[in-house]
Structures are given as C-alpha cells and as structure tokens.
C-alpha cells in the first residue's frame, strides 16, 4: 500500500493540532463540547468521536477506553460483515490502520504492533499498553479513518445508512430521525 500523508486522507487529521489534542485529553474527557477540535471534523466524524466518548464514559481507565474502541469496531463489523463479508471487513480495518499510521507519526509504533494480529483482539492488546491519551487518540483516528474510507468506496449516504445503528443506541440524546441521510 502507498502511504498518503498529504492526500485527502491525511489532510483532515493534520488539521488537528497536537496541542489541542493533548489539551482536550488532559482536560478530563470533556471533549463533547470542545469546539476548537470538533470544528475541524466532519459531522460524521464528530458523531463517531462523540459516540466513543459516550461509550468511554466520564472517568474511564485504559481498559474502558480499549473496550469502548473495540466494541465500536465490533458493532461496525456486525453491521458490515453480513453485507461485505468477513474478509471485506478485515481488509477495511487493515487499510484504516495503515492510513491512520501514515497520517500520524505517533501512531506508527502502535500500528506496527497491531500489524502482527490485525484484528480486534490484537488491537485491544496493543491499546491496553498505551496511555489513556494515546489510546483515545488512536481510537478516534482509527474509527474516523475507517468511516471515511468506507465513504470513499460506497459514498456518504450508504455509509451513514449502514453504520447508523452503531452510533444511535449510544447517543440517547440524539433523536433517531436526525440521523437519517
């Protein structure tokens, strides 16, 4: 695969300034309303980040964060596997990992370790070795990259349609009608 740090993939994430990320994470997971970070993301990515935050909860440790990330991946898998097959899902995850690492140098190390077993359990094991901030950042980047990757393949409306249920149950404050494409 060809890394593409300056392309359409990378650009979105380069916009996130490292200082903002650290500030956000160290502020104690108060990032749902954190405007400087949120405003750089697409509506869908915001939803993903918000959903992750929701699953992580207000005071989660690294185990909670790893669990939240893998559970979202699992839900995405459950939504997509019937349609694109298990192999299709695995391929998408691998590509997302690769793109995430290409776009963010600090994720490269994590990516290399996940490469050994590029599935959810391998990912979870690697996440558990990280700091909360790094794991959360990795999760956000990976999930939004996965989503964006799928969008470039099958378009935004169908992607939203297929993955709608992944976000909906966790966002009790968002009426389901609003998520319709």
């Amino acid at each position, binding site marked *: 695969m060809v890394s593409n740090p300056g392309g359409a993939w990378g650009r979105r994430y380069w916009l996130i300034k490292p200082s903002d990320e650290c500030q956000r994470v160290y502020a104690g997971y108060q990032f749902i309303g954190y405007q400087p970070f949120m405003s750089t993301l697409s509506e869908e990515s915001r939803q993903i980040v918000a959903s992750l935050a929701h699953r992580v909860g207000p005071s989660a440790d690294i185990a909670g964060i790893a669990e939240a990330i893998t559970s979202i991946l699992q839900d995405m898998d459950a939504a997509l596997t019937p*349609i694109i097959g298990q*192999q299709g899902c695995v391929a998408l995850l691998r590509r997302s990992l690769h793109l995430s690492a290409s776009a963010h140098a600090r994720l490269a190390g994590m990516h290399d370790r996940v490469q050994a077993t590029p599935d959810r359990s391998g990912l979870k094991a690697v996440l558990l070795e990280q700091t909360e901030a790094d794991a959360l950042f990795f999760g956000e980047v990976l999930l939004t990259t996965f989503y964006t990757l799928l969008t470039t393949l*099958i378009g935004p409306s169908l992607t939203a349609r297929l993955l709608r249920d992944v976000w909906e149950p966790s966002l009790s404050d968002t009426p389901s009608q609003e998520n319709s494409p």
Partner: protein
Amino acid sequence: MSTKVTINRLATGVPGLDEVLGGGLPEFSFNLIAGPPGCGKTTLAHQMMFALATPERPALFFTVLGEPPLKMLRYQQQFDFFDSDAINQSIRYINLADDTLAGDLDEVLRRIVSEVEAHAPSLVFVDSFRSVVLASQTQHNPNNNLPQFVQQLGMLMTTWQATTFLIGEYFTETDTNPIFTVADGLIWLRQSVERNSMVRKMEIMKMRGQPTLPGLHTFRIASSGIRVFAPAPLNPDETPRSLPMQRLKMGVPRLDEMLGGGLPRGYSLLVAGPSGSGKSILAATFLAEGARNGEAGVIAVFEQRPNHSQNATLADLIRSGQVSLVDSRAPDLSIDEIVQLLLSEISRLNATRVVIDSLSGFELALAPTFRADFRESLSRMVTALTRAGVSVLMTSELEDRYTDLRFSPYGTAFLTDAIIVQRYIEVRSRLLRIMAVVKVRASAHCDELRQYHINDDGLQIGEMLADQEGLLGGRPTTQRTGDHND
C-alpha cells in the same frame, strides 16, 4: 368464478422489459439472468430489485463469490435507481462468500434458507450463481450435488413465495446445466461486437406461462439504468383508412396535382434522387405545409452534419416546437431504438407528418450488426410508423445511373406507398432537374416527367420537356415532330 390460479405479473421497472417478457414478471418465478461478464446482469438485477422491493415486500440480495460487494455497491450507486434509503429497509445484502469458499452447497443452502426464513423476502437474488457452481466442482466431492442444490433452492423459494433470480455467467447456451430445466425464466444478455461497434442484446429464452417477444432485443445501459427497446407493438385494431381518401398538401405548387390531389393520409412516400436534387428541401416543405395547417411533425436526421440548420424554414419550425427533431447521435443504433424515439415524439406532439432524412444516413447510423437486415428493419419501421397513423416521407440518396431505372439503392421501393423520383439530365450543356411521380398506391397520379428548379421559395415545378425524349437515360435527344405516337 374461475378456480384456476391467477399468476400476478410484476412490473420490473425496466423500460421495455415488461413488453419483452410478455406482460411483466410472473410472481414466485425462479429465474436465471445469464450472460458473459460485463453484459449488465447485476445492473438488471439491481434495477428490478429497487423497483420491486418495498418494506412489505422486501428483497434479499445474496452475494456469493465474484464481484466484491463493496465494489458492487460502489458501482451500482452510479445509477439513478439506486436508493441508499432502501438498504437495510426494503433491501438487504447478505454475503455468503465464506460459506461458498468452503464448497459445501448444503451449507450455502442452509444459510440461504435461514436468511429467507428470518426476513421473509418477496424477492431473492443470488449473485453470482456461477461461483456456486464452480465451488461445488472444486470440492473433493465425487457426487457433484449441484442438480440437487438447484432443485431444492427452486422448490424452497417458490414455497416461500419469493420471486427468485440467480445471476450467472454462462458462456455457452448448450451447457447441460440443471438450472436450465428448473428455471421458469431464462433471461440471456449478450454483447454483440462487430468491428468497433458493440450492441447489447437481450433474449428471453424461456418464460413459463406467458407469450414473450421472441428474438434478440437491443438495450442500452445509461445512468438511468437499463432500457430495453422492445419492438413497437403491432396494433391489431389498425384504424381503417377513411374513405374518401384524405390527402395531405405537400406545400410544393403543382406537386399535389401530380400526386393525384396530394399525398394520401397515412401513406409512406419515398423521395429518391441524386445528391443536390432538393430532397431535403422537399421534406422541409412537407413539414412546413403541415405546420401551416396546424399539424405537428417529427424529423429524424441521420446525416453526419445535420443540414437542418442550413434550412431556415425547418430551423424555425424546430425552434417553435411545431416540428420535433430526432437527431440521435448515439452510436450503434438499432431499428427498435429509432422507432421508439420516433413514436414517443409522435405521441408527445400528436404529430401527423414524419420525415426520415435520409435512409442512406440511417443505414450508416445503424450498428453494423443490423445492416445485413436493413431492408427488413426498414420494413418494420415503415409499418410501425404508418400503423401509428402518421404520413411518412423518406428521402433516399440515388446514385445517378442512366443504364437502369432504380428508385432506391436498397430495393426498398416496394415498401412504400408512393414514390417520387428526381433525376439530372443534360440538355444543351445544362444540368436540368426532372421529377416524376412513379407510384401512388390505389390512386391515380400524373405520369409526366416534369422539369423543376430550386429557388429561395423551394421547389418550383414546371412543364414537361415535350420536345425531348430519352430523359431517363440522362442524355435526351430532341424529338422530331410527329414522330411519336402519343
């Protein structure tokens, strides 16, 4: 009350397909869509699925091996009929790749059945079925259980009241595939390639219980999806020509008189003549005269560089909407496509006059694969148009040959009801034009060879060249007085 079963017929949502199928798709039928790669099988399946599936009558689309589902979703979205909102509502995709890879057809069948039981679909698609076939052959299974699989699948789907489509690549129609026997319907798609031209064709090889239209039917795939060009229906209740014969004015002074009072309504007229003889001008005048009498017209132009823009009268008529221009630049036209274009314009404008300018250009516009059947095609077109009640004027380029008297290079003169022929002759070192009415079916007409010339007002018909003879030979001689027996 009849106690016989009534088979509902589903409207497929594919323009022209219901006609070709003989009235839609029989409900609960078990069908095979077959054809080589790239012929439009998956597109046809999707177009029907999006048209037919509703939340009450959902569809299951099983993807097996072959085109990866991600790609299929990516490409199918390019069509207008693809509606993302329907996915996971009325349409559900189910991937069976892993089950198929194992090569265990029983397992594949079990998965299909369990999904069908879970979702109770009215429509089931399996794409591609060929991969199921191949998978069954690669396993270490001495008893290929494919016939059994197909048989069971067919039975199950019917009892579950699901209209089913298996999509498969079959390269030979003579395969002794069990599915050919089990299937109620066989829809075969083809790409006919001749030189640089490609024409898509569809054949309904089998459709139990209904009168399909036999033969190959051309279709196109555009962003709106597939469109099948079914042959124009032959209206059995053809309106009898009213008596006394109604006649249309041609708009050329004295030509009506030559035709015996004008062109009988509903007739087809062939105007044959060499290049520059004024055929297109005559055709434009014919339409203008119609417009003057409140009759709308349709003109089909098949020239490489349409000269309609050079004819101010015609350009005005087209601009004002009194005449519709059918100027299909689509490559590889089929006769049915042209007839459909013309008929739809005729009915849109309620047109009564149609011009085809010219048959020579029309022949070139047709895909090479249809040229061998040109006469037959032309005959069908003339029949379809005149049955629609319109009067048709066709022009035909006629190479000047002075050794034989021909009216059309295609031997098509017999197809038309009336013929006007134009010729050049040489008289005293000048090129003069003459014209004659050769035929007007069931009507008296003038038999004179009249000289005419063309000016800004169109064709001006003059008198016979009574002092000349041998006009049709191109080099008439001055006749000696008293030497003829007229």
